[in-house]
């Protein structure tokens, strides 16, 4: 029996790349306004995907294949992570 899973795909720049948006949020918003404990921010893109699968493992593998086949993350410059949202 298939059921619907909510899969979250987070796509972000490789750590070697600068993230000017994250740096401004960390330095000019958080650290400047009382949250000096913040050491850094990286901005990412979140895709919340609803898909049908028989189980969690299958849902994750579908998402993994999709990221690779459709290049949802550009391997030149980005990394990704996939999880199931309960």
């Amino acid at each position, binding site marked *: 029996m298939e059921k619907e899973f909510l899969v979250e795909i987070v796509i972000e720049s490789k750590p070697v*790349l*600068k993230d*000017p948006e994250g740096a*401004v949020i960390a330095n000019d918003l958080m650290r400047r306004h009382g949250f000096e404990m913040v050491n850094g921010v990286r901005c990412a*893109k979140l895709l919340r995907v609803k898909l049908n699968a028989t189980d969690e493992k299958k849902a994750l593998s579908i998402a993994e294949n999709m990221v690779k086949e459709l290049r949802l993350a*550009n391997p*030149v*410059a980005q990394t990704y992570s996939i999880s199931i949202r309960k």
Partner: protein
Amino acid sequence: MPRIAIIQFPGSNCDMDAYHVAREVMHMNAELVWHTDFKESKFEGAILPGGFSYGDHLRSGIIAAFSPAMKEVKKMNKERKPILGICNGFQILAEAQLLPGALLRNSSMRFVCKWISMKVVTSRSPASRKFAKGDIFQAPTAHGEGNYYIEEEKLKELYDNDQIVFKYCNIAGMETPDSNPNGSLENIAGVCNLEGNVIGLMPHPERASERILNPFKNEKGRIVLESFKEYLQGKK
């Protein structure tokens, strides 16, 4: 005269500029072709124009890279026909892996719309063969994601294989940080594939091809299209 296609994707908006210059200025046999109608066998070359295909969603060029037209463009590449991508066309070619590297968000995080200078690094591409190495010319840029990036080891390959075609520079030809509009690695503005038949660049030579449109009062952008025309005609 060889036929070339100017491929229109949903959201292309420099298609008419490219068409105008190709036909009216360069007297090339150019046709506008909708991306789902494009058949490579009818054409000797293709231009992928600028714009915001599919609203730049996810990443500029990624959705168009999966268009049926790109399967045809890949066949065209196998036959080593010339393919020129301008701005969003460059982004599409990179996302389709016909060109190396990636175009990231501008380092300023802003859309950049201004005239820049660039210099010719190699004249081996179909878009630069009528230039001499080191020639400097100006063209407008208009993009939010033009920040060229490639992994360090691949960058070395680009140099070794003479694949860097254009670099941003100042008016004197120096590659300075100030002359780099988007944070591109090593001031790279345009690259070609290993074989040299596919070329992409972020600036818009088609908008610098007529004196009346050019604040520098020249028409050197036209040399990009003259090069392309000469390559199509098979001149050595």
